[in-house]
């Protein structure tokens, strides 16, 4: 593992080969916003909030900091007109789903995102995947998963596994940035067989 020198926001940063821009930035105390990232999970690259501007081999590009492997002499800008514009619109797109989510509010203020820009969408879920990935990678229960694709993509519990595992676990609940997860769980419980003890609790 050799050492790599790169530049982030004008500062020289030394980091290990194999690190991502996000890891290198964090090691140097430089902040890059994230939503779908979690230290216990493999980087996912779905929210794209961590988008940063890089210069490599003479070209400028926007990349996801949580996934991009650092290289020698890489130049990174964590803020720029293009980066900020991108984050603003991404937030506005997510706020259409969850206009009151706390994490999104803070970022919205920073980037001047307008939560009413787009018409309200019916689902609160922003598909960050934290719940699915946590249950698969950390708990290894796979009680929750994705279905379908495109604009119809959703997160649902697997009833027969969730009924056994979730009531006593719920470790993924605090991870959800919009509390869509809690709502989905309640719905799942309500739809499960009436003879199951958890469903008989009134809510």
């Amino acid at each position, binding site marked *: 593992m050799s050492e790599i020198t790169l530049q982030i926001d004008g500062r020289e940063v030394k980091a290990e080969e194999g690190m991502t821009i996000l890891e290198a930035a964090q090691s140097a105390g430089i902040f890059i916003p994230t939503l779908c990232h979690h230290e216990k999970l493999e980087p996912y690259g779905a929210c794209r909030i961590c988008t940063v501007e890089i210069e490599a081999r003479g070209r400028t590009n926007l990349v996801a900091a949580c996934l991009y492997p650092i290289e020698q002499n890489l130049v990174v800008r964590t803020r720029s007109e293009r980066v900020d514009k991108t984050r603003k619109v991404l937030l506005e797109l997510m706020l259409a789903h969850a206009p009151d989510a706390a994490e999104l509010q803070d970022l919205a203020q920073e980037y001047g995102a307008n939560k009413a820009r*787009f018409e309200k969408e019916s689902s609160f879920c922003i598909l960050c995947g934290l719940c699915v990935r946590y249950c698969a990678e950390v708990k290894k229960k796979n009680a929750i998963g994705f279905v379908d694709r495109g604009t119809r993509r959703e997160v649902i519990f697997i009833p027969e596994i969730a009924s056994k595992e979730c009531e006593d676990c719920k470790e993924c609940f605090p991870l959800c940035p919009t509390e869509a997860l809690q709502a989905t769980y309640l719905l799942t419980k309500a739809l499960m067989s009436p003879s199951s003890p958890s469903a008989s609790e009134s809510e």
Partner: protein
Amino acid sequence: MPRINSPAELEELRKGILSKRDPNKPCITLCSGTACHASGSEEVAASIEEEIKKQGLSGKVDFRKTGCHGFCEKGPIIVIHPEKICYLQIEPKDIPEIISQTIKEEKVIERLLYTDPTTNEKVVHESEIPFYKNQERLVFGSNGEIDPTSIDDYLALGGYSALAKALSQMTPEQVLEEVKKSNLRGRGGGGFPAGRKWEECRNAPGDMKYVIVNADEGDPGAYMDRSLLEGNPHSVLEGLIIGAYAIGSHEGYIYVRQEYPLAVENVGTAIEQAKEHGFLGENIFGSGFDFTVKVHRGAGAFVSGESSALMTAIEGRVGEPRPKYIHTAIKGVRDRPSCLNNVETWATVPLIINKGADWFAQLGTQGSKGTKIFSLVGKVNNTGLVEVPMGITLRDIIYKIGGGIPGDKKFKAVQTGGPSGGCIPEEQLDMKVDFDELAKAGSMMGSGGMIVMDEDTCMVDVARYFLDFLSDESCGKCVPCREGIRQMLKILTNISKGEGKEGDIELLEELSQVTRDASLCALGRTAANPVLSTIHYFRDEYEAHIKEKRCPAYVCKALISYYIDPEKCQACMICLRQCPAGAISGGKNQIHVIDQEKCTKCGTCFEACPPRFGAVKKISGEPVPSPIPEEARMIARKSKENE
């Protein structure tokens, strides 16, 4: 089938096959690709077999069902060898005459020949038909000569000689150099130099490497790969094995869409045949090189044709794209170096090895060498698959080969590159087609779909169509693509419904920027191209929809009305009877009137009204005239004496 252990044995086998073939023996070839199947080629085939027996010619006439000839507009197509007489749009009832006249008496049947639409001249030979004359069918041409289920046909044309040459006369590095020198660029859409990708894969650390054929052709309107894989599967296989040798891979995958069952079947047959001859397996041609290949079927997802998604699907997981900051040539299937190329790219390799990189580099332009197969479809007379040298102009493809726009309609745009591409207007028709020129014009080469559009095509509708396609086909993982497309589709749908507002175009442009900059994969990054290119070249159409609630091409249902002109209506009752909604009132001598409340805008009346009356009009952007009073609707017929 004998196992071939050396190049010399291959030549022996080839000589043997050729010695049993009499080039002067009459042979009927019938195009049997999927498109011709749909036009009835199976019934024609049955008819041919029956008639040959009936007229006592069994054994005296060969019959070969071949792959796609490319001139799909005129299918089913028959070519009579050795004269190469070409008959078009054949029906079973034509067969007895063909056998008795052309085969037995060597007489040409005029009515079945191609007729030049301007000069009315008949053309006898396939190669002289304007559609074919202006093409350079290097990769695709063999389709008309071989039965894809017969490896002997492929061998008779020199098949597997490139593989023999590569394995016995060249080192892997030399093969690699040759492909690099040829400047062959990927034919699947990315246009990445194949040689460079091969080299990257070859040099990547790891002993297990994979080579992959991407036959997940998903661009709607493009079917070149299907026809190539169905019609000449061995050419793809041969190219793949050569590539594997150059890269140092011993295991390959052919990923085929499940929507192409004939291609899956024919490639499977080809693999079995190649195995029997020893072209696949251990110690190929006695060179010590081993290689096996597996077919993997897709299950109906456009996005899984993206290279990293395809590799994920091969692993049995959901075919979603992964970040490609580290190229798949270095970390692909199961994180091992994997070299993925398109069907057409692989099929071009044997030609390059046999004829040399210099020969290949002679064709085409500076940046784009060789030929490319396009599927020329839409509002064009000669729909089909065309192979042309890079650098030919769009005008030549559409007019010289395509025969121009049907019905004397005006050309409006040609769409290339599928959902990742853009629309190119008339002013750019003299563009020399190649990777870079198309990109400069705001489109891209893509896999080769070339959709011609005329004055009756609404460009706002085209943009909306592509976004609708992508909203279903996106994997949905990342926010910019999923949500960006969601919002852009909403805006475009509103515009097409007459609910567009000021600022919509600017909002579309802003969303396009974010989708392009922040998306995880190429589907998202290029999703905005159809929108941006139509705004760029056809902004006036967008503005008409938004400001005037008018669809200039009379397509957007919510913005058009059908109206029967009382001055022109002859009360013939044709439209009245055909209207599926029962929305037309009138009678034998009573002018027909469309009830706008009941009308579903299906357009049947418009199509049905006899051209000499032309009474049905489409109206947009203005109110429909009120129906004339009932009393005024009776037509007074002139008596016969007054005419």
